[in-house]
């Protein structure tokens, strides 16, 4: 990416965390994803599939505390 790993702290400090800034960051991210994978002439399944996989992953993460009780073994 454009930000090196050791510059991460400085880069994060310079970011705009106001509500407007956060909203504009979300909009920029959305535009980037949309223009790269969806707003094209011949898109494939990838654009939607990635969103669905992300949704599945996030929902698993949010439910993990509940799913913990279905574990087969107590000690790993």
């Amino acid at each position, binding site marked *: 990416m454009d930000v090196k790993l050791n510059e991460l702290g400085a880069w994060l400090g310079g970011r705009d965390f106001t509500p407007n800034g956060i909203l504009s960051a979300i909009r920029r991210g959305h535009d980037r994803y949309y223009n790269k994978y969806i707003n*094209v002439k011949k898109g494939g399944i990838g654009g939607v599939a990635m969103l669905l996989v992300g949704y599945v992953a996030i929902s698993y993460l949010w439910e993990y505390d509940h799913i913990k009780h279905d574990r087969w073994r107590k000690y790993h």
Partner: protein
Amino acid sequence: MLSRLVFVSGIVVHASRCLHTSSQSLAPVPPLPEKGGKVRHGFIPEELFQLLYPKTGVTGPYMLGAGLLLYMLSKEIYVINHETFAAASIGAVIIYGVKKFGPSVGAFADKLNEEKVAKAQEVKDVAMSSLVQATEDEKKEQWRVEGRAMLFDAKRNNVAMLLETNYRERLHMVTNEVKRRLDYQIALQDLNRRLEQEHMINWVEKSVISSITPQQEKESIAKCITDLKVLAKATQAKATA
């Protein structure tokens, strides 16, 4: 594939390519990119493979995936329960459906897109041809205007001729009328003179006749008889001579 559906259904979902972000004018709008970002196996972006290729070669990401999967299974970060079975079945059905019907649906959406584009193109072509025709007609009209000067000259000549004819007619009429009036005056004078002459002659005759007394009449008759006798004698003498 959603891209084709989005395009086809005409949902203007935030036309958010860089329009109106720079001060330069971006007309005509640049065309859509042909293909989206490459995605391997349907949900892993190609960038991951490119990222890991220098360090680990071609099999690197697959090894990473397999290792992560084993780690999550063994540490039971991913728990196998009834939902796993459901997810597996649904995944199988989805993959089968996409593999089987993907290309045909894509082709159908592409065809719809083509029709839309063809219609727009046709409108543009018709507009262009009509504008070209309009410019040609305009040029023709400009050429016609040049000829209009000649038309006006001919018309001007016509009008001048009409005026001339009218003027001559009136002149003619005026001379005729004047001549008629002068002729009338001449005739009037002639009549006057003739009347005076006749009246004078009549009056002289009447006065002469009335002045002949009976005495003079007898003398003149006797003189006529003697003259006649003399004449008779002369002619008799001439006849016998």
